[in-house]
């Protein structure tokens, strides 16, 4: 384990503040800072529309703050590297977005995020702030039958932000936005794979080192191990090994409309991701499923880890509409229908 930092940073203590300052400077027409660690839209939406708020650690750029903007998130509350923001900071954001229409708080299932969200919600409830929590938990690496609370939330939150963000901006009520979002949330699944570990940007410590020539299916998005280690397989073999369980989980059938995203986590090239997509897409087509939304991109990264997350979602007509026909100007997700 080396403690050498190979990154262009300044003082490791100030990584999060500095990256957020750079981000809002670059996209000043779209996003701005509220306080030191909370990203909000530069043009807030009307108060009669539901606000969509999320929270999470830094070090996963462009997630999560890259998806704040018209048609997606209203607010992203940032913690520190790989660490959830504390409840007091989240409460400040909930107070800022307090409105009769209510707030949808999207939480990825990781212990720190869930504890902060629950504690902030208790405090918000006591102040009569209307908040509904939606928990994402689509990682299937722990097994297809693992209970929701034991499955992590991975990059599947990003298409969910697009769907609930579009529904909220279209004027749907909090109950309607929640229902539309939960229908997608329960019909998506993600698997992650890695072949080379990352280092923690603040400590330089290597996280869950992988021996050369091996890969691990089920890696978490902080580089933590997932259990499914094997010798390195080819792109086609890896893609097949991942798309199979995802399709099984969602019981994909002929005629189903599906979304397939390959989310690179840092060091894996778009070349490799495209080859992976090719095989996974072929398997989907052979099953008779209709691929209506595909992406080869970096949504949520894990520093210099090499690997990717494969996200599969089963879509109904509402989801297709909100994903494809509603505009978004978030810096990392632009849609111009």
């Amino acid at each position, binding site marked *: 384990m080396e403690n050498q930092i190979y990154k262009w940073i300044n003082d490791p203590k100030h990584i999060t503040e500095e990256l957020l300052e750079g981000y809002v400077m670059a996209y000043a027409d779209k996003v701005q800072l509220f306080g030191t660690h909370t990203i909000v839209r530069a043009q807030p939406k009307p108060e009669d529309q539901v606000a969509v708020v999320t929270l999470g650690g830094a070090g996963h750029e462009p997630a999560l703050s890259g998806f704040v903007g018209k048609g997606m998130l209203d607010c992203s509350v940032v913690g520190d590297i790989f*660490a959830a923001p*504390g409840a007091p900071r989240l409460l400040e954001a909930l107070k800022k977005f307090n409105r009769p229409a209510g707030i949808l708080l999207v939480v990825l299932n990781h212990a720190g995020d869930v*504890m902060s969200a629950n504690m902030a919600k208790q405090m918000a409830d006591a102040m009569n702030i209307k908040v509904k929590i939606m928990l994402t938990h689509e990682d299937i690496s722990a097994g297809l039958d693992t209970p929701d609370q034991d499955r992590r939330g991975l990059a599947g939150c990003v298409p969910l932000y697009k769907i609930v963000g579009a529904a909220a901006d279209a004027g749907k009520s909090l109950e309607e936005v929640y229902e539309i979002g939960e229908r997608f949330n329960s019909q998506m699944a993600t698997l992650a794979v890695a072949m080379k570990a990352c280092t923690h940007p*603040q400590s330089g410590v290597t996280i869950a080192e992988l021996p050369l020539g091996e890969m691990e299916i089920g890696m978490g998005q902080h580089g933590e191990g997932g259990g499914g280690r094997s010798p390195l397989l080819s792109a086609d073999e890896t893609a097949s090994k991942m798309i199979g369980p995802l399709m099984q989980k969602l019981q994909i059938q002929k005629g189903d409309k599906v979304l397939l995203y390959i989310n690179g986590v840092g060091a894996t090239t778009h070349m490799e991701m495209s080859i992976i997509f090719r095989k996974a897409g072929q398997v989907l087509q052979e099953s008779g499923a209709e691929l209506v939304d595909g992406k080869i991109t970096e949504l949520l990264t894990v520093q210099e880890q090499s690997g990717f997350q494969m996200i599969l979602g089963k879509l109904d007509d509402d989801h297709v509409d909100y994903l494809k026909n509603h505009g978004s100007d978030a810096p990392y997700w632009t849609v111009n229908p």
Partner: protein
Amino acid sequence: MDVLTLEVFKQMINRAYTEVQAQETHFSALDAIAGDGDHGTAITEALAAVNDSAREGTEFNQMLTQMAMNAMTRSCGSTSTLIGGFFLGMGTAAKGVQLNVPQVKAMFRAGLASMQQNTQAKPGDKTLMDALVPAVTAMEAAEGDIKALFKAGAEAAANGAAATVEMQAAFGRARNLGERSIGHADPGASSWACMFGAFYNAIN
């Protein structure tokens, strides 16, 4: 020692901060085996915030609540919320400027109860609960004065943390590692055992 005064409690907090800080790198390295390698930093930052709030404390309830809010504001991640929940809980059960033996026992029990509202982890899961639950239980069962109570807590926490080496993680991120999680102490159990050891060292 028949009572725990506010001033002595502040010294215990300061000692806990100093001893945990001295092992910051060790706790982070333990966390890197199955987690994301930041536990040492997180617990040190949280205790630094708690220690700073001690300086302004004039009464147990107000000081413990302030410690909790300051820890959760200044540090991030689950460690911050767990420490915050613990001190918030302790604050609900402690008032005034000195506590007798039953009052100290009640304060630690309330801290644990508050944390258990935030996490489902239980002893045997290879988490900080493997140090904290035996510590609080031993403190409650201890006979004698304040010193005896903290001695029992420190020993139980240390034994609990040592026992996590042989455990397979059953909670949190490390759970996915299965058998590979065996062979190393849990970072949270280790840092909390260090804290309880420091509480006793401060008064011994």
